[in-house]
């Protein structure tokens, strides 16, 4: 088992190499460069050249690539051209909003989705079931960024209950931080809540009809006990799958949400950096996202093994 984990971790390396090189090449081959953006619109070509030289962008591409790669291997992601700080630091500063957003969205998703799915399964085909599934369906279909815009209109502009944009750090003021994240997390999490609800429901339905459940019932165990002790644990596997997938999806869905709600997170930084051609940031963020993604997948797979003993056999 440990071997396996170690091997999986090793596969990070080729993934990172491929991702890193691809991003570098894509970024540098895209027309437009940060020097021109920095110099401003009325600058003359000589002024742009001066800045380009100061940034080291006039060196041949392979040289720039190897310099960058060399630094990365040593753990140095370079400095952002526009933000004047190390990329690593810029990312770390923005991990909080993005991370909190993702966690809070996941929290909403689980909090709303799982119970809804369970109840819907237990009361199959009743009006509760249909209602829950109906809303779930709507949740999956509404684009999250559109929902975000509608929420801003309603809660910020018309009702003045919540702020339209911005962010306050958790350490500064937890209550305010929550206020700023409430709408974004909700709009982002709703779709995943819906998804989770559907999955939980269908898994529960399957499980509830399994023999061992019927056996437990016939033994005289109460409904709830059955639910909790037998049914639910088996639902965990598919639920975990979705959570794993959702985390990845949430991280990328966070981008549009951050743009709509103007949150100073990694997603927005990416968009800005792409527009400004801030290469070090673009490359650094993609690498980090790749790492996170692989790690999350790994974590979910490990969780599987513990949750479902049958998986250890390699088949169901």
């Amino acid at each position, binding site marked *: 088992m440990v071997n396996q984990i170690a091997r999986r971790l090793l596969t990070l390396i080729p993934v990172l190499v491929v991702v890193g090189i691809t991003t570098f090449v894509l970024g540098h081959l895209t*027309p437009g460069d940060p020097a*021109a953006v920095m110099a401003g*619109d009325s600058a003359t*070509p000589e002024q742009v050249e001066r800045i380009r030289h100061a940034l080291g962008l006039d060196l041949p591409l392979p040289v720039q690539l190897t310099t960058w790669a060399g630094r990365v291997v040593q753990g140095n992601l370079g400095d952002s051209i526009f933000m004047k*700080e190390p990329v690593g630091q810029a990312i770390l500063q923005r991990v909080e909003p993005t991370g909190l957003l993702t966690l809070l969205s996941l929290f909403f998703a689980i909090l709303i989705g799982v119970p809804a799915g369970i109840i819907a399964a237990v009361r199959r085909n009743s009006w509760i079931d249909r209602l829950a599934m109906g809303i779930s369906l709507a949740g999956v279909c509404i684009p999250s960024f559109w929902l975000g815009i509608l929420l801003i209109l309603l809660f910020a502009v018309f009702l003045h209950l919540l702020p339209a944009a*911005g962010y306050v750090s958790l350490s500064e003021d937890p209550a305010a931080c929550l206020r700023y994240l409430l709408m974004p997390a909700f709009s982002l999490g709703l779709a995943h809540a819906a998804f989770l609800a559907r999955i939980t429901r269908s898994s529960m339905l399957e499980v509830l009809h399994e023999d061992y459940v019927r056996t437990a019932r016939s033994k005289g165990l109460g409904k709830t006990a059955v639910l909790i002790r037998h049914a639910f644990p088996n639902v965990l596997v598919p639920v975990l799958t979705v959570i794993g997938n959702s985390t990845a999806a949430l991280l990328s869905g966070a981008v549009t949400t951050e743009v709509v709600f*103007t949150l100073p997170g990694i997603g927005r930084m990416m968009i800005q950096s792409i*527009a*400004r051609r801030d290469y070090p940031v673009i490359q650094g963020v993609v690498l980090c996202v790749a790492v996170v993604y692989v790690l999350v997948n790994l974590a979910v797979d490990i969780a599987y093994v513990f949750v479902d003993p049958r998986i250890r056999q390699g088949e169901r």
Partner: protein
Amino acid sequence: MSKKLTRREFLKRSAILGTGVAGAAILNACAPAPTPVPPPAPTTAPAAPTTVPAAPTTAPAVPTAVPPTAPPTAVSKKGGTLRYAYNGDPPTLDVQWTTTNVTAWVGLHMFETLFTYDDKYGPIPDLAESYQVSSDGLKYTVKLRKGILFHNGKEMTSDDVDASLRRWGKLSGPGKTLFGLLDSLTSPDKYTLEFKLKSVYPLFETALAITGGQDSVIYPAEVIKEAGDGEIKQFIGTGPYKFQEWQKDRFLRLTRFDKYVPHGDKPIGYGGKKEAFLDEIRYIAVPDQSTRAAGILSGDYDYVDEAARDQYDQLKSNPKVKVSLDQTWRLAEDIFNLKSPVMADQKLRQAMLACVNCEEVLKASQGNKDFYRLSPSLMLEETRWATKAGGESYNQNNLDKAKQLLKESKYSGQTLRWMTTKEFAGFYEEALAASQQMAQAGIKIDLQVMDWATVVKRRANADDWDIFTSGWGIFVDPMLSPQFLGTYAGWWQTERAEALRKKLLGTADFKDRFPIWEDLQRLWYEEVPCINPGNTRGYRVMNAKLNDAGQLTVMTRAMWNAWFSK
């Protein structure tokens, strides 16, 4: 695309973003008393060119502005944090390093220049106390104000000014021009500088005044030394606000500099007494214009400099906020690449000019009538250079004539590449409307919408484009505009244009220069290096309790002298 850079503002690049032209009413007609061009005649008239009588004469006919007569108790006005929502963080705060407008707008609270403008665009000394010009116009002796302190407590002397100007001279276009004409720059004592020119330069004070982009701000000499060839590492200036903190993508904070030494005892245009009533100015990057509007309605911001045009009516009627139309207009323009083989054909360009229905284009771009006006003048009407010369060719809206001209041209159905962007409000819509009008005459256009970084990149290469959309802020002098200088992308460098330019640059007196400018404008309408649909403007929204903010007509982003009522 969030374009974090406030490129949107590059428009206001106005060499004169700083200059306000108070009640546009004044206008050029009445020649303003203070001389923007130093008269070669008077020798030692020490104070003459510098005293500015502007203040008493006109209550600027600006609708919302209140002449900045300081109310009695300064104490009651002090206090408060201004939360200013802008389009995006500046790429840097080193004002000398970049032409980007946001850098200057924020930076001019912290840094100052030798000269600035009164509310009629007349240059007045700011960090300079006075100056004299020799009778032949070749020697300028500038006396600095004494006792001016930098944010680090050090006094400003001619060493600092010398180092700053030399660096600026290397980094900026107008700087290079000035230093190219300079024979020598010396500092006879620690409060005096002597500039010896090789030839007369009518733009001396203007070049050293605030322009809204890459200004000749003064830094301490040691900061410049520390910077070497790169950007400055510390933001230390002489302005009424000092740099406090910058958390990228969250906010940029400037706080009051308590030891600020005022230049005089009352505000004069962009200079004179600049008072820091606000404790702090906090700039918050909010890239989306409707989010900014939503934010000011929900009370999260106090000042928004560009809000969505279509929200104007709603905001106007809301008692919690004040709106005010910018007094400064911008010139909208579609620039032709004269180096492109197909665009080099003058008849084709004239045909394209004939197609344009300016009102439709402007309406597409701005929506509400309050935000655009038709104007044939290439220098904005608020300047004294405004003229209708050649204006018969403006807004022709004549498809038949266009088709006729097209037949006479060498155009044979090639597709023209038109670059535009969505990053600046109105550019895309303007290009779309105009290109569709031209398509009706049979001109094929491929409208390419891209992000601004790509436009800037491709624009530099003459093979890559035929037309692109742009816009300009206000200039105090046509020869300050890179576009009229011919060096800007588009390359209007025909023989006749070059000849007129030379004449214009070499003549000193405004009354001699004006007719030459009129000829240049006429030539412009004949050779059609660009199409100008007209003028556009934006508006500002602010907390109803905020006063005197952005009242300086063109410097709508100057927050000194602004204060909150309780």
